[in-house]
């Protein structure tokens, strides 16, 4: 049996409400909230970035796994907001957690699906018998241009998964990926904010890849939507994943546990992985879970997992996603938000 042996998620404490952003730019807050199905989003603190979020999530993943970090043979962080253009994020993480130096480390990028890439490669290593454990992480502190629709959703957070063959809490039964060159969203070298192709990001990009990937893994597994307790689809906003799920035949009850976007925003590489973590927080042995990510550019990764008897033993060993979403939130005004996000040009010191 191969799959997840430990998982962890990290939700920053800071938030900004959609009203704050709408008021700043003279937009209709209710229209945005209704259009995006989103109340507020997370904001990284002034001392947080993809590396610190990854460390926090991975520390909880290792705790739930209950393993010696030295046994982890590979570590991959998927993100589109690695703090350095040149210098890996993963090296900081392994030294913080006491992993390695006998360890393969790489940073992955693929817009919002870099996290599931990291999970897929980590899983492949343990499935092949190359190493006992591997760590796959999706984390981001994503940016949206001021006033752009993305500013209402681009948020911060991440989740980490220790893959292994001993002590599995969620067996990975099937994987499938669907990829094509579809330029719906991009950021070129040196540009601060990403660009997107407006409505083109919907049908030919998100829905084509998400639905094709989901259908592909259902066909290969021979499973049907009613076989699942939970289903998670990448959450660029509140509407897209619900529509994708409904189109595939999933019910609201199957979708709502992993649908964290209304209170968290789009955590990009951490989005569907954090939805999965929220499902693992509540799943019971034997429950099947489907997750489909999406990364602009474009592609989707799908996984089918089944919770094992060990899962309930580890659920309470670290903070749960929905507890973090509710816990001691600090709401920022727009001025503090842009300062924390580095959107103000300051004098160099």
């Amino acid at each position, binding site marked *: 049996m191969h799959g997840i042996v430990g998982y962890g998620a990290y939700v920053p404490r800071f938030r900004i409400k959609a009203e704050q952003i709408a008021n700043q730019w003279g937009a209709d807050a209710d229209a945005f909230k209704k259009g995006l199905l989103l109340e507020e989003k997370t904001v990284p603190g002034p*001392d947080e*970035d993809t590396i610190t979020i990854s460390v926090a999530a991975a520390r909880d993943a290792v705790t739930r796994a209950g393993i010696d970090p030295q046994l982890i043979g590979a570590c991959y962080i998927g993100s589109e907001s690695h703090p350095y253009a040149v210098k890996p994020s993963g090296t900081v993480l392994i030294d913080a957690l006491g992993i390695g130096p006998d360890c393969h480390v790489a940073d992955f990028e693929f817009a919002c699906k870099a996290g599931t890439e990291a999970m897929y490669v980590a899983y492949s290593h343990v499935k092949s018998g190359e190493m006992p454990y591997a760590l796959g992480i999706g984390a981001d502190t994503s940016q949206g241009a001021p006033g752009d629709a993305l500013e209402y959703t681009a948020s911060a957070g991440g989740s980490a998964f220790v893959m292994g063959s001993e002590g599995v809490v969620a067996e990975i039964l099937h994987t499938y990926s669907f990829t094509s060159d579809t330029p719906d969203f991009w950021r070129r070298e040196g540009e601060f904010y990403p660009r997107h192709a407006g409505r083109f990001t919907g049908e030919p990009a998100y829905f084509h890849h998400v639905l094709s990937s989901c259908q592909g893994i259902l066909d290969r597994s021979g499973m049907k939507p009613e076989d699942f307790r939970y289903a998670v689809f990448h959450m660029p906003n509140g509407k897209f994943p619900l529509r994708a799920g409904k189109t595939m035949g999933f019910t609201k009850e199957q979708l709502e546990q992993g649908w964290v976007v209304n209170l968290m925003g789009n955590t990009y590489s951490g989005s569907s992985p954090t939805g999965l973590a929220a499902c693992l927080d509540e799943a019971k042995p034997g429950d099947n879970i489907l997750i489909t990510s999406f990364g602009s550019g474009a592609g989707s990764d799908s996984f089918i997992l089944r919770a094992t008897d060990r899962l309930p033993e580890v659920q309470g060993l670290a903070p749960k996603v929905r507890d973090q979403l509710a816990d001691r939130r600090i709401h920022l005004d727009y001025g503090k938000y842009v300062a924390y996000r580095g959107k103000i040009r300051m004098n160099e010191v």
Partner: protein
Amino acid sequence: MITPRYHREIPQRYRLEAGKCTACGEIHFPPRAVCRKCAGREMETIALPRRGKVLTHTTVWIPPAQFEEQKPYVNAVVELENGVKLTCMVCEAPPDEVTIGTEVELVFRRLQHGPAWEVIQYGYKARVIKA
């Protein structure tokens, strides 16, 4: 902080590694070569516990330039569960959330990121777990 010094201090700043005197058991953080209690020279490396409580604190309103964006912030002396005391910044907390006895955990945060041509520096800060 210059890069060689930052690299040298990674074990203590990232993983809270301390030196425990093999002769008398005194714990030194940051680690040191000679025991301050018995002058022993053999040290065992141990990891400090991550939980503790605030012994004393102060709020910084006029910080050094590299911490300007984080002001006002709280600096505290934290006593860890094994009695070791260290000084660090308390992250996220509004100043009125930190008092003597506040329970905290040490978390991994960015300490300085300075100008874009510098190395980003990471290490431990305290985070309130029970206000």
